């Protein structure tokens, strides 16, 4: 099983002396469904940003799908995000004036795929998350659960090797949150590596592996 995420001695400090990560080693294999769990301030958001290549580590090496990120420039890192990583955010981050279909198609915008192909694949992705009947609705006409489904569709429309979900259930009620977790599970069953960042133990415990973070260090790493 090849590693999708491989962190070695990753540290991240910020100006002013704050050390968000203090030496993290972490390997996530292809096809895993893992949770990074920890209280706020534990460094899990920084970890997500580093795994998502939105931020570079101060020290240590990061390899995503076999690419060592320190060797890549801005354009190639962006290419990695466009094709290899899908993001799901707590706040969904949908463009409010655009339709569900357009929002999902935006997931392919920076891959250079032609417009008709983006739309075709966006429709498939929306059908996959059970929103085939909401294609033309604008983001501000959808419920929270539906928004998060659109966001998940946008994350998977490019068939990325890795989906990073940052508190995907944080803005949803328990029942809808459960549905979203179910969706991520189904996604994982279809072969995608899924990494969920959460502060919610209960959500983390439903996944296959729990990596606990505290004060910038991995505290425990339990695989079910």
């Amino acid at each position: 099983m090849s590693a999708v995420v491989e962190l070695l001695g990753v540290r991240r400090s910020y100006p002013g002396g704050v050390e968000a990560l203090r030496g993290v080693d972490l390997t996530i294999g292809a096809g895993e469904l893992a949770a990074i769990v920890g209280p706020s301030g534990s460094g899990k958001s920084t970890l997500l940003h580093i795994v998502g290549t939105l931020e570079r580590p101060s020290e240590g090496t990061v390899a995503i799908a076999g690419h060592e990120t320190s060797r890549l420039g801005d354009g190639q890192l962006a290419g990695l995000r466009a094709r290899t990583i899908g993001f799901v955010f707590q706040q969904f981050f949908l463009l409010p004036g655009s339709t569900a279909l357009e929002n999902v198609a935006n997931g392919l915008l920076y891959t250079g795929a032609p417009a008709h192909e983006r739309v075709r694949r966006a429709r498939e992705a929306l059908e996959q998350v059970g929103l085939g009947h909401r294609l033309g609705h604008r983001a501000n006409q959808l419920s929270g659960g539906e928004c998060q489904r659109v966001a998940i569709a946008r994350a998977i429309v490019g068939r990325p090797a890795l989906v990073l979900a940052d508190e995907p259930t944080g803005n949803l009620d328990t029942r809808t949150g459960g549905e979203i977790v179910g969706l991520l599970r189904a996604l994982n069953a279809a072969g995608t590596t899924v990494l969920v960042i959460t502060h919610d133990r209960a959500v983390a415990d439903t996944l296959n592996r729990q990596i606990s973070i505290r004060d910038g260090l991995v505290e425990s790493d339990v695989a079910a």
Partner: protein
Amino acid sequence: MSAEAISPSTLQPRDVLRVGLVGLRTRRLRAVLSVLGVALGIASMVAVLGISASSRNDLLAALDKLGTNLLVVKPGQSFAGAGTVTLPDTANAMVGHAKDVTAASTLEDLGDLTVRRNDHVDKAVTNALTVGAARSTLATTVGATLRDGAFLSPATSRYPAVVLGATAADRLGIDRVGSGVQVWIGDRWYTVVGILNPVTLAPELDSYALVGLAYAENELGADDSPSYMYVRADPGNVDQVSSILGPTANPEHPEEVDVSRPSDALEARAKTKTAFTSLFLGLGAVALFVGGVGIANVMVISVLERRSEIGLRRALGATRRHIAVQFLTESVLLGAMGGAAGALIGVLVTAGYDANRGWALTMPAYAVAGALACAVVIGALAGAYPALRGARVSPTTALRAA
């Protein structure tokens, strides 16, 4: 670790436009308002250029109709430098028979006479009007037309009859001719037999009250020493005629004769920019500048408001450059929209003004093209700084901030 090369993220050129439109589509009112300044600036510049081009064209067309072969002969300065210089009384006959002269006529100032509405008006009140003795050929020679009545004929030239220039008629409050319409010149009543329209080629006639030369010679002491001579030359030989007019009109003192071609002056005036044009162009430029600042302002706010969108796009694979290009495109589109709207308004204003004046619509292509180019450049300049700011936004802070 196997690592096939990663292709950098790409944004198709056609998608650049699409992405640039997203912000405008979702904030339409703001887009319209931010474009107003540029639209007004462009509109005023296009309208000013269009209106002045139309007016110039109209004047040149009128000149073509009036002919550019009219020459005006005036007594110039005497070398002695003293006294009023006049042309000799032989001038009209001599010039009239010169080669290539098709028509000639004269006007003689009757300096000590004033024209008044009636005999109760003080003699010193001249209204800046002059009384002159005219040949009956004057109107046809200069191309003057009559608003009312008829010009002096050989018959009416013998009687106390007067033809008023356009300005003279206005100042005296006379708007028609008729049996009872009279003005007071010198010490008696004169019947108004004609009122002239403004004379384009000889505007000095507008403020004259013209009496017949025959009557003036008999009753008013005129001696046919012309103050102005109007000469029509064969259109192909205007320059030759112009050069012989001095010696012909005043053989003894050819150096005391001024010859001018009024159509030249009019043409030159038509082609120079007036202060009015410059003023409005300046105001347009100010409006344009303010409009550009308005767009820049809106774009800066837009970048601040859309930090989470910037963060999202970076997460979806946009490079810093893609973000900069997106905001720059948006700003250029705003400028172009303002330019297009402004050019349209400018053309409409010009069309309306021209229709009102009875001019043919003349809209120089360079005005419209230049205005659009100007608006696009302003959009680009206004968007440059906000675009750079957008590109510098760190994706992680942008995503956390929301």
